[in-house]
């Protein structure tokens, strides 16, 4: 029993790292542009396919293709910003959220349908020589690729934090997130910040997708499920709090895993959602968000 709980907890935390990674990009776009991109999961799906095809067509190891996937999705994000989300950012904050929700919902439909058309709807997954390898710590087995996914999530979080806090661009991003009009007045090119931030958000989704393509599976319809998890993680962490995302993700993953052990696999997600609602009732600002006025 102890082994079951320990092993489940570890699996939950590792899955939670993925939730955090997926939520990272969503939170960036929401925090900076104030757009709620429910097509984030579809960007993740595209990243997963990019990684899958790099592996199956050219034999590129999924870890090696990570930077390429990031760049490809970054560029796609920039394109989406130029074609769609740029126009959303002209609205005031409240209407931005509403309109971006609607537009990205339309985008969900389009990207899913196109993915079915071009990639077929079959489940795809990458199986490498090290797919089944694991490190044993005491009674717990830690699968290598899950651990790697977790490490990628940690690196992405740290890199993003560092960029936001220690670079000129990061300062511009934070200033824009805080109050874009003031940022614009102090000479920040808000449009540029928006575009790059959205690109990074898409790139992060791509990386998450690449990790999912060999830890889990990709198909055109996986997006919404991951978007839902990411939304919950973002709210759980507290809007605007980048650093708590990973921890909130791990919390969600751990809750699900323990719920599966104690309540039963069929109620894993239900219990996690209920816990989420309870946490929200007591801490509406999330774990790490500042209390709202």
């Amino acid at each position, binding site marked *: 029993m102890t082994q079951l709980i320990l092993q489940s907890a570890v699996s939950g935390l590792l899955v939670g790292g993925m939730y955090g990674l997926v939520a990272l990009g969503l939170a960036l776009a929401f925090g900076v542009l104030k757009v709620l991109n429910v097509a984030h999961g579809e960007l993740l799906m595209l990243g997963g396919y990019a990684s899958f095809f790099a592996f199956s067509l050219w034999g590129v190891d999924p870890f090696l293709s990570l930077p390429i996937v990031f760049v490809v999705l970054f560029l796609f994000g920039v394109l989406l910003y130029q074609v769609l989300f740029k126009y959303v950012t002209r609205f005031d904050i409240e209407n931005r959220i509403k309109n971006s929700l609607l*537009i990205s919902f339309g985008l969900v439909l389009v990207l899913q349908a196109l993915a079915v058309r071009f990639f077929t709807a079959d489940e795809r997954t990458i199986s490498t020589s090290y797919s089944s390898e694991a490190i044993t710590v005491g009674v717990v087995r830690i699968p290598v690729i899950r651990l790697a996914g977790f490490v990628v999530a940690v690196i992405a979080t740290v890199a993003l934090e560092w960029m936001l806090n220690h670079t000129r661009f990061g300062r511009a991003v934070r200033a824009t997130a805080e109050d874009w009009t003031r940022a614009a007045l102090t000479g920040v090119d808000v449009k540029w910040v928006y575009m790059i931030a959205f690109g990074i958000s898409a790139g992060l989704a791509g990386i998450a997708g690449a990790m999912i393509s060999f830890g889990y599976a990709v198909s055109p319809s996986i997006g919404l499920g991951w978007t839902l998890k990411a939304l919950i993680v973002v709210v759980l962490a507290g809007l605007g709090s980048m650093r708590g995302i990973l921890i909130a993700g791990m919390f969600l993953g751990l809750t699900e895993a323990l719920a599966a052990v104690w309540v039963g696999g069929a109620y894993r997600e239900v219990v996690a959602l209920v816990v989420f*609602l309870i946490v929200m009732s007591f801490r509406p600002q999330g774990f790490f968000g500042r209390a709202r006025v």
Partner: protein
Amino acid sequence: MSSGARWAVALVLLGGSIVLGVVSDDQQILTIAIQVFMLSALASSWNILGGFAGQISLGHAVFFGLGALVTREMWLGGSALALAILTAVVATTVVAAVIGVPLLRFRDIYFAIGTLAVGVAVFLTVGNIRPGISSLPVDALREYTFTGPYFLTLGVLVVTVIVSVLLKNSKLGLGMMAVRDDEEAAGASGVGPLRHKLSAFVISAALAALAGATFAYFSVSYYPNFPFSVVWTFEAITVVFIGGLGTIVGPIVGSAFFVILRDTLPSNIQEFQVVLFGVLFILVVLLLPGGLVEGGQRLLGSLTRSQAGRAPDAKTGETKEGKEL
């Protein structure tokens, strides 16, 4: 349009629908009509909460589903349809009142995500509890006609529209809109925000349950968790925004647009159809922020105005003109 003209159009449409239901036995036309009515009713019910009171709920399908679940279980269990529907609406109203209080403490995006979480949790739970498909028994299949569901759905839509109209012109409705426009100001001027939001939430839920009941009566076979699917919420929201948020006719126009576009394109080019729909949807959101109703009114307005020799006002898009209907 003047108020009289609007009523005349509404009555003509209603009369036409009744005639269609009486004379037509074309399965396809009736099916499309039923779907338009049902989605219109559901969208209108969402519109009371989302459009009037300004609370974007992503968990609306919970109430549609509850209405369907209770109606179906009782009706197939042998109760009279009317009793089943009544019970479904009462039960849903109670549930909405109970979960509404804690949920409505959340605001904006928190409310949206919170209701989404509730919606998904209920969807999964119903799937676990009622895993088997719900099909009409063979005898009922043999006797099935479209006329019954057609008139029930039409009736439910009429009820929903009447409730919306009455509400919109009532003190309660005005209070909802005040809360929508500025919650703090409304609270300061004596309009209880929670009370108004909760009223909108409960009325909206009860009407959604009514729409769900029509689904239960119309559908030959479905998995019991299907009416709880977030798809219904998304469709309702989509058509409300396409038609015109906070208007009475917007949800109906949006539903007709949505269903007819979806169903007249054959399903064997479905990906194409979804892509087309997605792109059209994005276009409407970007280019017609007030929805089809406001777009139509702007067009109508600019026509009459140019006839009167005045230049159309390019800024009408920013006015609340469309909200009047």
